[in-house]
Each structure stands twice: as C-alpha cells, then as structure tokens.
C-alpha cells in the first residue's frame, strides 16, 4: 500500500541522515529526541485524480519534515489518506473512517460538491476540515470548516486593492455575459466607485472582442478590469491593444490567451511557481515525488502544518481542541504570510496574488499582503 511504503521511507531517511552527520563532521550532531506516540491527521481527497494525489503528497511531505524536527509535542505525525472520489457518499464514508482513526484534523475538500457531506460528518465529530476547494463560499461560517482559499467577495477586494494601488484616473469595469462575472464586476465597481471615476461595460454573449473593446474605450479609461472568464480576458486585452489602448489591464483570472499579452495583470491563486519563497520547498518536493509541486500540493503541505501547529498549541489532542486553536492561531505562516482565520473561518488574508505576464509566462507582481 502506498501509505505504508512512504511511512517506511521516512523512517529510513531519518536514520540515514543521523548517521551521516555523526561521521561527516568534527562536531557531534544534535540528537533528536525519539518520538513517542503519535498524532494522526487525515487527508480526504480524490486520490486517483492529480489534485487529490498532490494534496496528499504535500501533506505527507509536511509530516515527514515535522517528524524530522521533533513531531508534535514529541509525537510522531501520521497521515491517513482516504479517497473521497469526489463523490458525496464516499466523502461522508471517508470522513467517518478518519474519525474512527482519531484524526485530530483533516485536509481535503478538493471537490466543492463533496465537501458538504464530509463536513456534516466532521461537524458532528467536532473535527476540523481545512477545505482546499475554490468556490466554497457557501461553507463560510461552518463551525469545523476552515477555508484555504479566498471567497468570491475577496476576489473583488483583491481586484480593488490592485486597482487602487495603480492609482488610475478612470477605471472601466468590464464583465462577461454570465451572472458570476457580472456579480464580480458589480462588487468591484462598488468598491472603487467612491474613489475613482468608473465606467461599466457588460459584454453580450458572442460579442466580438473588437466591438467590446470599442465600447470600453469610449470612456477613455487608463485601467481596464475584466471580470469574465479567463479565455475572454486574453482576447479582450488583445483587442484593446489593437485599438491603441496602452493603459493597465487586469483580468480576474489568467488563461493561456492572456499569456501573449505582455504586461497584462491577473488576479490568481498563489502557486509554488509564482512564489520565490517556495523555491526551496519546491525542490524538496520535486526530489521526493519526482514531479513539480502544484497548488494542491502546497495546500496539502500548508494545511497539514497548520493543523500540526494548532495541535501543538491546543489544550488537548482532540479535534475540537485543534479546531478551537485553529480559529485563534496567529503565529502560523505559509509562503505567503500569516495563515489566520476570521471568525467565519474564511481566510483573513486572501491567498490570491497579482501576477504579471512577462515573456509568455506569469510572474509574481504582488502578494497583496499587508506590510506587517
């Protein structure tokens, strides 16, 4: 079984390191105290799919590193991974299995549709679930659900903060034809309207980009924000350029079409590739799993470590104690900065960043994190 094999590998590696240190240096290597007992955390994800597999891998790497540095209060960190197959029944069943295994906390919830059944079980079992799925706004406020991704309203705030940062004279907020895009545009427009002259343009379904661009440019903006689908963003940016627009372009999400638009910005979730701070970790992950880490892997890694930090500071080892500590924890940080939860268990500080297109690829422009 994959889980057992990895566990054995961890043990062997730890011993090997200790031996090399003892023979390779003149000074005696520090002896880590032996780990006594264990604390179990769970991974509940579609293990046969790349995202679930990567989430589990990130969690396992975190456990290995924790165990190499003393575990949690001297106890070995064990990770029990259960496949939820992105299905409601399997998610509920998997959650019950993890409760029976006395998991003190769980990382998972990759598939938004499978989260609710799992959470119902975990709420009853008073065990926290760190939710990796996007579009989990309806789970905000759950007593044992903690979001690892920003909410819809935070997407609007992220756009607003970047727009404000650029200090434009006039912003054109452009939405696609779908309801979600229009809702996002409405929120962004409402946020910036009081401070910056703003115009609103709504694309019609199937509208040619050139015509949309002409509508946008009528108000002579120096900043264009596109709240629609990723594909539309690249096409609109290209059409604006063709029409002579030289101002700033920000898309609500980045797609392949945008990568040809040098200098364009996008609001996007943080990935290991975009974070210089994650470079060393990415190398460790690649060495262990022979593939580059994905965002899901980073979520698994951060999620497991957050649970471990909470277990370390909790009053007791139960899921309820870990959840209580998670809710008030302020000293745990990821590559982006502090991982803090608001009273409704959404992220206090969004995991979205601003990326910029340079030479056909996205690069980090701003983490949108406060200077603190």
């Amino acid at each position, binding site marked *: 079984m994959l889980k057992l094999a990895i566990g054995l590998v961890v043990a062997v590696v730890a011993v090997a390191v200790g031996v090399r240190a003892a023979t390779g240096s003149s000074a005696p290597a520090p002896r880590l105290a032996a780990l006594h007992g264990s604390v179990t955390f769970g991974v509940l994800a579609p293990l046969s799919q790349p995202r679930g597999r990567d989430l589990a891998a990130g969690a396992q790497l975190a456990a290995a590193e924790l165990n190499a540095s003393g575990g949690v209060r001297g106890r070995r960190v064990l990770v029990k991974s259960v496949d939820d197959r992105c299905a409601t029944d399997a998610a509920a069943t998997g959650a019950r299995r993890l409760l029976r295994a006395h998991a003190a906390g769980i990382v998972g919830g990759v598939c938004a549709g499978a989260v609710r059944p799992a959470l119902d079980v975990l709420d009853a079992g008073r065990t926290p679930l760190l939710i990796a799925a996007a579009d989990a706004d309806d789970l905000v406020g759950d007593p044992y659900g903690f979001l690892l991704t920003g909410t819809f309203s935070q997407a609007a705030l992220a756009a607003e903060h970047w727009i404000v940062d650029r200090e434009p004279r*006039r912003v054109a907020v452009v939405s696609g034809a779908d309801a979600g895009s229009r809702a996002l545009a409405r929120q962004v427009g409402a946020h910036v309207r009081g401070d910056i002259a703003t115009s609103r343009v709504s694309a019609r379904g199937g509208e040619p980009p050139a015509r949309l661009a002409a509508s946008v440019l009528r108000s002579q903006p120096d900043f264009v924000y596109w709240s629609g689908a990723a594909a539309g963003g690249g096409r609109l940016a290209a059409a604006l350029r063709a029409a002579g627009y030289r101002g700033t372009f920000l898309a609500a999400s980045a797609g392949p079409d945008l990568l040809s638009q040098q200098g364009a910005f996008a609001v996007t979730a943080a990935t290991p590739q975009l974070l210089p701070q994650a470079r060393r970790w990415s190398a460790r992950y690649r060495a262990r799993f022979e593939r580059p880490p994905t965002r899901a892997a980073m979520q698994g890694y951060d999620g497991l470590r957050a649970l471990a930090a909470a277990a370390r500071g909790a009053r007791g080892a139960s899921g309820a104690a870990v959840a209580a500590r998670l809710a008030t924890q302020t000293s745990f940080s990821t590559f982006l900065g502090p991982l803090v939860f608001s*009273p409704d268990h959404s992220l206090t500080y969004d995991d979205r960043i601003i990326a910029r297109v340079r030479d056909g690829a996205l690069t980090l422009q701003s983490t949108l994190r*406060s*200077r*603190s």
Partner: protein
Amino acid sequence: MYGGSRARRRAGWLAAACLAVGLIGAGPAHAQAPLPDTHNPATGADSSNVTFLYNTRGVSPGYSALNFIHYDDLGMDFMFGNGTGGLSVWSMENPQQPTFVAQITAHDLRVDGDTQDRFWEGENMTVDPKRKLVFLSRDPRGFGGSLSTGTSGVYIIDVKDPYHPQIVTFHPVPAGHTSTCINDCKYLWTVGPYQTGTPGNDPSWFPQPAYSQKYGGVPLWVTDVSDPAHPFTYEKPLDLDRFDGQTAYDHSVDVDRNGVAWVAGEGGDRGYWTSGDHWDPVQKKNRVATAYDPIPYAGGTTPLTNPAQDDFFGYFDHNAQHITQKVGNYDAGELLYVTNENITDCQHAGELKIVSLKGSYGGEAWSSTPANPFRLQLVGHWTVNGKPGEMDSNNCSAHWFTVNGNVIAQAWYAEGARFIDASDPANPTQVGYFRVPRATGVTASNASATYWHNGLIYVADYSRGVDVLRFDGQITGTPEGICWNSCDKVTVSVPETPAGEVGGTVPGTLSLTLGAAATFGTFTPGVAQDYMASTTATVISSAGDATLSVADADAAQPGHLVNGTFSLPSALQARATTATQPTATFANVGAAASPTSLLTYAGPTANDAVTVGFQQHIGAGDALRTGDYSKTLTFTLSTTNP
C-alpha cells in the same frame, strides 16, 4: 445641578419623529446584570467650577481613551474605553453613573508570542458608530513587548451587541498607537511607534534633523476595513517628509467637521482632504482625494513656545483640532488648537497652543526645508504653570482635549482636567479645573483625555479609570457638537464630486445642541411664586420642515419635578423662542407619548439660536421636601420631510 429641571441633549436624525417615540420609554433589548466594578473616590479633590459626579474603573485600572456609540434600538449611548486591562463597555442609561456591563480583557487580546496581559496604548480610540465597531490600536510596547520586540496593529471589535463584544480580528500594521476612522470608517489611518522588523519603515527615512532625533520616521499607514474581517493595509505610507522634508513621527489623526483629516506629530500638523474633488496645492491641479492618496489642505510646523526647547519635545505636536467656527476676531476655520506634549515639571511642560493656518493653504508645509523652514503663526498658548489648582509634580503636560463652543476641556496628567476658555484665542483663560491629589485610599489624577458628551465631561484617566464631571461654568461661544478623532453627533459633510465636475451635495442634517443645564435656584416654601429658568439650544436642519419638542419620559410623574418620591403639584412648563420666532407661550411639558411642541421650522436653518425657557409655579400651600427637585427631559428635533 439644575435645582429644577435638567435637560439632556438628543440629536435627531432624518425621520426622527418615529425614532424619538421609539427611543422614549423603550426598555433595553439585551440588558444584563452589571459587572463588578470599582469606584475611586475623589476625596480631597481640588476643583473650581467643576462638580465630581462619579467614577468607574471597569476592567482596567486606567484608560487612555474613551468613545461613544448611540444605539437606536436600545435608546441610549454606550461608552467604550481601552486601557492596560483591556476594553470596557458601559451603558449610559444613566449618563451621570455609567454602568459597567461588558469587557474584553487584555488576556483576551493576546496574540501568539505575548508574555503579559497588558494592552498598550490605544490613545484616541476610534469607533464606527454605523457598523458598531471599535478599533483598538496596539503599541509594540504592550503585552511584554518593546520597540525592538513587540507587535503593533489594530484590533477590530464587533459591538453590535454592546453587552457581548466580540473580537473580529487582530490585524498587524507597521504602526500602533492611534487609529482613526477615515471616510465613514471605510479606512483607518494608523500611526505611532513602529513594529520592529517590519519592512514598512524605510531606513532611508533616518536620520532626522538635529533638532529632532528621537523616534525617527514613523509615517501613516492606510488600512481598508470595508470588510472588517478581511482588512488590508496599503503598501504606500502617507505623510512622508513632514518635518522640513524629513519623515518624522506621526502621533495622531483627528477629523474635523469638514472631513479634513489632521495628522499631528513631530514637526507639526498637516491637514488632508480624503474625499471629493479639490485643488492640490502641491501638485498644482484639481484632482480627487482618496484615503490612500489624500490632497494636502493646510498646516505646518507650530512655533516653539519655549525657544530654548529646540528639540524633539519642543516640536512634538501630540494632537490637533481644526476649529471651523469663528472665534473672537479669527475667521471660521482659521485656528488650530494643538497639544504639545512634554511630560515633565509644569514650568517646562508641553502646552496648549493656538495657531493660525493663514499662509499655509498653498502647500507651504510640504515644501518646508531646514534651510527655508515654514512655520505657522502662534496666536496664543496656555500652560497650567502658575495657574490655580497647579500641583508641583513631574507628571505635567497638555494632553488630549475636546472643545465645546469656546471652552476647551483638556487633560493634563497629574494636573487633572482643565477647562480653558479660548474666546480670546490670544489669551486663553482657565475657567475651571478638577484634580484629585494623592491621599491614603485615594488614587490621584493622571488624566489622559477629556470628552464633552451630552452636557457632561468624561475623563479617561490612566490611574483612576473614568471620572464623570459636570462643568458648572458657562459654555461660551456656539456649541455645535464635539469633535476629536471624529465628530460626536455632528454631521461631517464633504462635497463629493466626480473628477472634472464642480458642485456639492448636502447630506441630510438634523443637529440639536443644548447649552448648560438650567436651574431655578431655591424654592421658598409657603410663598406663591412663579420661578423662571432658561437654557440655550442651537438648531441646524437641512430638512423641508422640522419640529423641536420636549418630553418627560418619567412614567410615574410625567411633567413634574420630583425629589425622590415627592413631586411638585404644578406642572413644569416650557417654551422656546428665536430671533425669528420671538414670542411663545408656556406649555406643560408632556409625557413621552405626547411631547410638547416648542418650535416649528418651515424650511432649512443653520445655527439657529434658541432660548428655551422654563416656568415652575409654587403655590402657597404646596408642601416642599428638603432637597433637590429635578427632572431629565428629552428634546427632540424631528422632521417628516427630510
């Protein structure tokens, strides 16, 4: 004390008719038993023209600041105070004796790594009265930290239910001492001692000019709190280069009734527009002001009151308030009242300064250099040194103040609360004071801040807790609401126009300000007589019509003065007159359900001076009980045509 009736100000907002009825007689929805409290006596207090009414300690031994929020549904104000022990909440059902009802302790406020239960300092505590939020500024020197180890930032507290305050979040900011709401509290401006290790304080901001090298460059940080659970601090600090071109130590921000935000600190005071379209005197163009890119308005370095003190403390302006009224021979908006803080013996202590802003509207402060320094004109200044009630101490300095008409109520540390009449700004004069000297069993004054609020004065005292006082002197000038970091029941209106347009908007305004309590003096038993008393009121209304009315909410003896269980047989009567409505007939003061109409307005009015008269008949056969007969009345300004 009134001796007859007491009047309590009630400011009504739009559609206040329904509001007033809802307020009067309604019981609190979430009332609960008071928390255990301690009351420091004022035994041996040295005072003049000031009456000590009450003391309360709440959760903390002392407080740096207070603030107030009105709750329509509960029909009263609540007072909030932060101190080393945490946040205290008091109900103001009885404004003279606030009741300690809720708390968030310093222990509750700890973040990871804190080693002590000691909050610091939260001066000039700001609140959002609409969303019912309280913001506590955390200085790095609290919770066991220091300038080199501590954490700074702001706590956001939800007080929608004032009996159960909830911490929303602690948000780190590279500054922590005071935070002020900006633009209807969509933003906070936070200033104060820096959080060590933050990348937010640029080493190139050092060194300071030779005459100011203490805290170095601590500018202003802007935080978007439109979503209080997800605050965001912008990367670019503001108010750089404030002292002859050097970034210096910002200490506080106070918003005037025009919406201009005044940043006080080392090197003086600079005012900024934070919204609306304005001429930018530095960029030399019209543009739209925002909280994160404000437009310079006026200000500058205030002159030294002691030329020998050519150092940090000489130039350290602790806080400033822009006076938008005409005062004496000085134009409306010309004067700035400033605290220069320097805690030492009273002979050398920091003083209250009054400066003129003339000559500073062209961005002069933003181009001042050591070679070509710009300084504001000093109009007057005041110190407690040599004044009645002075105590010989090394804990002496001007500190936080609020202004009611022309009377400044200012805290002076061990020198207590001082009342200074600035009717002649060149010669401010003490007209009252209150100080508690140390004695066995008596905690001495160590006043941090003084707040006029609904006719009383609340003193945040670092050692005593909160003292409740009444000023028995005359409020000179025209009271029109109290401002400090924001304005208490005063509309702050700023014309907001899109870029490129010219115009203005008038927000709905109903403002009622009452003067000092009226008193009938002494009633003589056995002698038939009509006794007369009066007070003043000021009305501002932008409504299509308005009505000023008075009512007595007492269910047992409405409309009658009472002395314990004894009431006067004849009803208390009232009338109101103005320059344009000079005649009126006395009418019985009605009950809450049937308030007595005093004045009506057929259109908008501004600063209408009202004389409110009272008449009390005493019959020859009326049996009078020894003691004071009094009543608290509710005045309401309402409209049905906002």
